[in-house]
Structure formats: C-alpha cells, structure tokens
C-alpha cells in the first residue's frame, strides 16, 4: 500500500470502474446535495449539537461515526426534520437541500425526498406488499397497477424480491431480522427519495445480513445520496466515500474516508480511529 499515491488509496471501494464513475458524476452534476451551516440543536434545556457545518456530496455515501451520545443520530434526524416528532426539541441554523431551506418547505414533501431507515427494523403490522406500498398510498403517488410495479421495483432494488415474491401478502413479521431491515429500505425507496438516511441500520444484524445491506448501499448510491450513521468503523471504511467524526456534539473532522482513516488531521479522530477511546 505504501507505494500508492494518495489519489489511488481508496478503502473499501470495489473495483477501479467506480473511480471512473465517480469522476464522471463529479464532472457532470453539482457535487453538493445537502449543505448544513452552523446547526445548533437543543433538547429542552440541553444543547446536543454545537455549530455543525457540513457539506454532503450528491450520490455518494457519507458515514457519520463517533461514540454513543455524540449527537450523530440527532444530526441525521434533523436532515428530514424527524426531530420535530419529539416534544421539546429545537434546531437552529441552516440546512439546505439542493439549495432550498428544509425548514421552509413542507415537511411531508421533505420526508418524501429524504427517506429514512432506522436502527431497529420497524415494519408496519401489515403485509410485505402493504409495507412497501404505504408511502405511495399515503402520498397518492401512483394508481393501483403502478403501485404493484413500483413495489416490485423497490423490492428488487432492496435485493429482497427473490426471497419474498411468492408471499407478498404474508405479514412482514414473518421475515427474518435482516429481511425486515431490507424491507424497511424497500419501503423507503418506494417513494423514490433523493436522499436516504440510515441510522445504524446494521446494529441488530449478523455479519451476513450486514454484508448484504452494505452491498445494497453500494448499488443504491448510483441513484441516490446516502448518509449512514454507524458505530462500526470498519463499516464506514468499507462503504463510505466521505466520513464525518462527531464527538460530544461537535463535528471534529469531515473528509474523504481514506483521509479520515489514514491521515486524520485531528488528534481526537486519530485516537478514536485507533481505538484509544470510544
């Protein structure tokens, strides 16, 4: 590894064709999807995020790492205003999605554009089909026949179709944990979000199910921007193009993943990466 130049050092990215794809993407479209400026977050009287500024690139995987309670999940939930479902929360600062202030646009439209997958799989007590169709139905995004098509497409994108195509009308709870999590991803994909937020999506899964989800993310990133919170540094190293390190409510460092893991600028980042704490 030592004789590679810095531009060639790419951790956990499969194949050289991806780098070509990257450069094509970077050249052809604006590289910026979400811009966060001076974000402060209060939970009642307690401030949990301090002056976070961060630019999330389009159609890339951005990982947020840090020890428990560092505010990375809170930050993630601010990006589609999920914090507003909890009483007593207050977010100040600027979050721009394609240059639009997310606090100024309708929250329903925002959440349709910015989907979310949670730590524990949380399918509705409905059939597999109904779970994926839910977002389409409540947003009146498609008619009956189109819904069936989109459900199939979403399940395929979530790499679950082959496992469930013969029992779409069984309860979602009949699936295994890993399948349920992929179902939740399919459900989020059905409304065709531009951004997918994932809050520790693999923390309850075994390594095989985790690998499936990681492969899935690497496939999905060609069509949508992914932000993933993870406790697992290897996971960040494997899948992410960019990585941000949070500590005690502050963003310590944000950079390309290989820079964060190979050559971090901050001592705290290095200490955390090398396992000296956390």
């Amino acid at each position, binding site marked *: 590894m030592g004789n590679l130049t810095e531009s060639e050092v790419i951790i956990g990215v499969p194949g050289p064709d991806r780098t070509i794809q990257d450069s094509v993407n970077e050249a052809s479209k604006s590289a910026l999807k979400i811009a966060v400026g001076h974000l402060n977050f209060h939970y009642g009287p307690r401030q949990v995020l301090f002056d976070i500024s961060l630019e999330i690139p389009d159609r890339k995987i951005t990982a947020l790492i840090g020890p428990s309670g560092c505010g990375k999940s809170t930050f993630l939930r601010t990006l589609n205003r*999920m914090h507003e*479902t909890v009483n007593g929360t207050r977010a100040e600062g600027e979050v721009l999605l394609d240059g639009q202030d997310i606090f100024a646009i309708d929250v329903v439209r925002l959440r*349709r554009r910015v989907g979310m997958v949670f730590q524990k799989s949380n399918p*509705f007590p409905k*059939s597999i089909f109904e779970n994926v169709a839910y*977002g389409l139905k*409540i*947003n009146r995004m498609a008619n009956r026949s189109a819904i069936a098509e989109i459900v199939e497409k979403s399940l395929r994108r979530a790499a679950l179709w082959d496992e469930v195509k013969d029992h779409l009308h069984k309860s979602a709870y009949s699936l295994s944990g890993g399948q349920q999590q992929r179902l939740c991803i399919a459900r989020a994909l059905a*409304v065709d979000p531009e951004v997918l937020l994932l809050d520790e999506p693999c923390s309850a899964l075994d390594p095989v199910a985790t690998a499936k989800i990681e492969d899935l993310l690497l496939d999905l990133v060609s069509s949508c921007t992914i932000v993933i919170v993870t406790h697992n540094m290897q996971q960040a190293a494997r899948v992410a193009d960019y990585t941000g390190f949070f500590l005690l409510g502050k963003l310590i460092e944000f950079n390309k993943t290989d820079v964060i893991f190979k050559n971090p600028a901050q001592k705290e980042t290095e200490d955390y990466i090398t396992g000296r704490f956390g």
Partner: protein
Amino acid sequence: MGATAAEIRSAPIPAASGRVLRRRLFDYFGWGLCALAFLLLSSAMIWILVVVFLRGFSALTWNVMTHVTEGTGGGLLNAIEGTVVLAFGGILLACPPGLAAGIYLAEFDRGRLAPVIRFLSDVLVGVPSIVIGYFGYVTMVVALGWKFSVAAGSVALAIISLPYICRTTEMSLRQVPRPLREAAYALGAGDGRVTMGICVPSALPGILTGILLALAISVGETAPLIYTAGWSSYLWTGHLTNEPVGYLTYAIWAFITEPFSSAHALAYAAAFFVTFFVLVISIVARAVLDENAGWRRLRSWERRKA
C-alpha cells in the same frame, strides 16, 4: 480453574450442608405461603361460582328463557332482553366519546387539557354507581321527562363505561412502539394518518378489550339502572323513552328477598345468566388481548384480502 466441562458435569453433588438445608426449608416455607394465599383467594371465587352455578342450574328451565316474568314467577326473557339492550346501548353511546378522548389523551396531549380530562376520568371511575343512578334519575327521568326508560338506563351505563373505554384506549395507544410511528412519519404521513392508519390498528386488541371490559361491567350493574330503567315484566316494545324495561340484576336484587320459592328460583337463574355473560365476555376479552390471537386474526384477514 482448569476444570473441563466434562469434569464439572461428573463432579459429585456436594451433600446438603446446614446452610443449604436452611435455605431449602425457607424456600418451601415461602412457597407454602404463596400456595395458601392462592387457595384463600381462589376458594372464595370458586365458592361463589359453585353456588351461583349449582343453584342457577337447578332453577334453569326452558320456561325461564322463553317466558316473561309474571309477578314473582314466570320467566326472565324480558330481563335477558333488557340487559342486552341496555348494555349494548350504553356501549354504543360510550364508544364515540370514549375512543375520541382516549386517542386525544395518547396522541395529541400537547395542550393543558389532557391532565384535566385524565383527572375527570379517574374521578368518574371512583364515583359510586348509585350516585350516577341518582344523577340519571334527577336529570333524565324527571327533568327531561324521559321517565324510566331504555334511553335513561343506557345513558347511565354509558357514563359508567366511559372512563374504562377512555383509559384503556389511551393505554393501548401508548404501548404502540415509537419506531412504528417514526417509520410512518419518515414516509411523509401526517399526525392523523399515523394515528388512524398505524397506531389505532396496532392498538386494536387492547382497545377492544377495554370495550369488552366496559360491557361486562354494564351487564353486572344494578344501582344506576334501578333509578333510570325501572323494571318491567313485559318485553320491550322499542320505545326509547317513557317505557320501563327489565334487566337481570334487578331480578336478583328484588326476588332474592321475596318469601316465595319461585322468586328465589328466578333470582338464582338471573345470577347464573349475569355470571355466565360476564364470564363469556372476559374469556373473549382475554382471547382478543392475546397478541398471538390478534396477529393470527390480522394475517388471516390479509390473506383473505389478497
């Protein structure tokens, strides 16, 4: 330290020392007390059931179920009919406000109103049912001029059912896991859709149990009906006001003190019916609350839809 699993398994069980023996004795003593408490409680219940069922069975004849009361004899058809009408009338009246209040308390309690409603509901549970009967008499029977009637009796039972329905609805909605709500919010669902489309269906077994519990209480109530429904030896002709109606608990209350064996038989039979109804409702409620039963229901429903 270095013992292998096989060594540990084959090691001899040490003989009971004094301390072990004491611990075992104390253990037996504790279990003995538990068994005693269980016997004491269950024997009272079993005694009641045995008396009600034995006497009820011997008083049960085809006549009792097919004829109306004549004086202190005859049958209980009028009372069975009246109990069913009054109990269901009460539940029908109590459900809309009870469910609405429960949903409000669980899902939209950001205002100052929620603690007030919760307090009033708790007070209502504590009000003696005879006070509600007296209230119904003064307001509906006399002031509104409804006389003894199905309407007055149903409203009185509705007042008694209301807090049970309200609080069980609130409690079962609160048990809906937060991640389920978040999943719906994250897909762009609004408050109303999350509540009615996700939370209420998930909480349905609990809500139904509350309604059944209220129904069981209504079937067993006497005091609020004496002052509002009155008593009638005839079948109900369908008038909501100005027509008194019979019900089973009245037959128990009034006939057990009469000096005629025919009246006693009616009282025993009525007690049997009331106990039987309440028992059946409780068993149904248990089955509904059983989560697995709930899930099986949901799955078969989905299969039918598909």
